[in-house]
């Protein structure tokens, strides 16, 4: 009973929906504002992502008859719930529960929105959506190898797939290597420059989202924001050892978590503002040739630590 209440509280309140949805809008604003400031602009007002969301809820959608339309409407909802579930799993508060293997569930939930985007592009039957989905799929198989190897190496060095144990581990050379590899994957995971090619604005209209409108598009925006919260939150929990235990209070742990996440968002926004979009072959080559080295180094040293020391 107690476990159930804790799990529900984590999913619905903190770090789940009640926290994550405003945080998603806030992170989207931070990203847009940071890019604007880098370009010497004033940038959007604070409430902008919220207004965008409300406005989209009030718009019409084109008629989508039949099963195909039903499936098309389902993808954004699946993406939002997966991303919200991923945020709810993050071990932010001390003794927040969790179970053996929740890291694997988190990785699966983090991957689900990207799968939904691929499926949505193909089910929309728009040529631009299909091109965007094909790009997303190609990008996904490139960065995921690195992303998974980095996380597995961190987990292997701690002999556990439990998130709470990973959040409270001592930082080591291996963690640093792993976090660098994860950070290198985040721009591709979040579709920002230089890896914004799946939804390449103007170039292929809006990629997989081309046919989506109104409330469906609002859900995609929300799932994108929640992905920001989940991905930066994962880095925040890995970077800050004893995010909670060192100070003991939940409030401080929560504040530290938010501050670290915002720092990661700022880092990624600066990268996005400073770079241009790469072509698909350059992006794939970047992950297979440059970043894979880090990941292989991380996992081989993890195995070395595990078996010989």
């Amino acid at each position, binding site marked *: 009973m107690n476990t159930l209440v804790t799990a529900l509280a984590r999913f619905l309140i903190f770090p789940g929906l009640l926290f994550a949805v405003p945080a998603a809008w806030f992170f989207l604003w931070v990203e847009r504002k940071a890019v604007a400031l880098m*370009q*010497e*602009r*004033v940038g959007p007002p604070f409430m902008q992502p919220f*207004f965008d969301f409300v406005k989209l809820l*009030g718009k019409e959608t084109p008629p989508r008859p039949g099963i195909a339309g039903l499936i098309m409407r389902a993808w954004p909802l699946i993406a939002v719930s997966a991303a919200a579930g991923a945020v709810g799993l993050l071990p932010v508060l001390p003794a927040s529960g969790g179970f053996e293997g929740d890291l694997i569930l988190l990785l699966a939930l983090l991957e689900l929105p990207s799968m939904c985007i691929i499926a949505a592009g193909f089910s929309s039957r728009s040529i631009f959506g299909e091109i965007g989905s094909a790009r997303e799929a190609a990008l996904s198989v490139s960065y995921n190898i690195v992303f998974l190897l980095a996380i597995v190496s961190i987990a292997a060095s701690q002999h556990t797939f439990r998130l709470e144990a990973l959040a409270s581990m001592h930082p080591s050379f291996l963690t640093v290597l792993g976090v660098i590899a994860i950070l290198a994957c985040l721009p591709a995971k979040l579709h920002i420059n230089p890896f914004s090619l799946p939804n390449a604005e103007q170039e292929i209209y809006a990629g997989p989202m081309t*046919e989506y409108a109104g409330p469906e*598009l609002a859900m995609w925006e929300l799932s994108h924001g929640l992905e920001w919260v989940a991905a930066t939150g994962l880095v925040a929990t890995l970077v800050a050892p004893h995010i909670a235990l060192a100070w003991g209070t939940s409030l401080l742990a929560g504040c530290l978590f938010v501050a670290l996440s915002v720092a990661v968002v700022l880092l990624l926004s600066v990268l996005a503002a400073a770079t241009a979009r790469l072509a698909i072959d350059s992006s794939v080559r970047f992950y297979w040739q440059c970043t894979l080295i880090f990941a292989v180094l991380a996992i081989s040293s993890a195995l070395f630590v595990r078996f010989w020391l």
Partner: protein
Amino acid sequence: MKFWKRLMCTARRRSPWLFHMNSGSCNGCDIEIVAALSPRYDAEQLGVLLQGSPRHADILCVTGPVTRKAVGAVKTVYDQVCGPKAVVAIGSCPATTNVFIDSRTLVGPLDKHVPVDVYVPGCPPRPDAIIAGVVKAATLLAERGDNPPKPEMVMVEPAEAGVPADSRGPQEAPPASWGGDRPSSAGREEVQP
């Protein structure tokens, strides 16, 4: 319910997303639209975003005198924009067909084919006028609510609406080395909208 309506009204006014459509323009107005979105004029501080897909847009910005080739595309794109929507005719061409009047390759002006809400005259109009027109269209969307649009004509003068024209404050005079045939800008007054 009333609160939701008020919130929706604010959201529609504060978040106009554009789709830009060229119906045979000389590219002059298109360049000015790009200028309106660039860091110099920074329309994003009003929530304006240029969208890649007409499905995402609230406001359709049409330039050009609507040529025979383009009229089908204009109608298709207008139907693809999901309601509530508004159309802004940018430049004199979509309003009157301008200097191309009586050309046999034209089927314009624009309001013969789609209902136009806001006209931004000029050849080309200044970026501040374009931003003022877009803001006006967003206000119209907010006022109309979910009711179907009534045809009404709104003209935008560049001096209208308290639009932050320039995010960097007053413009500095261009250097004298710019172009030989331009009159010297030393004694000229900058036109502030």
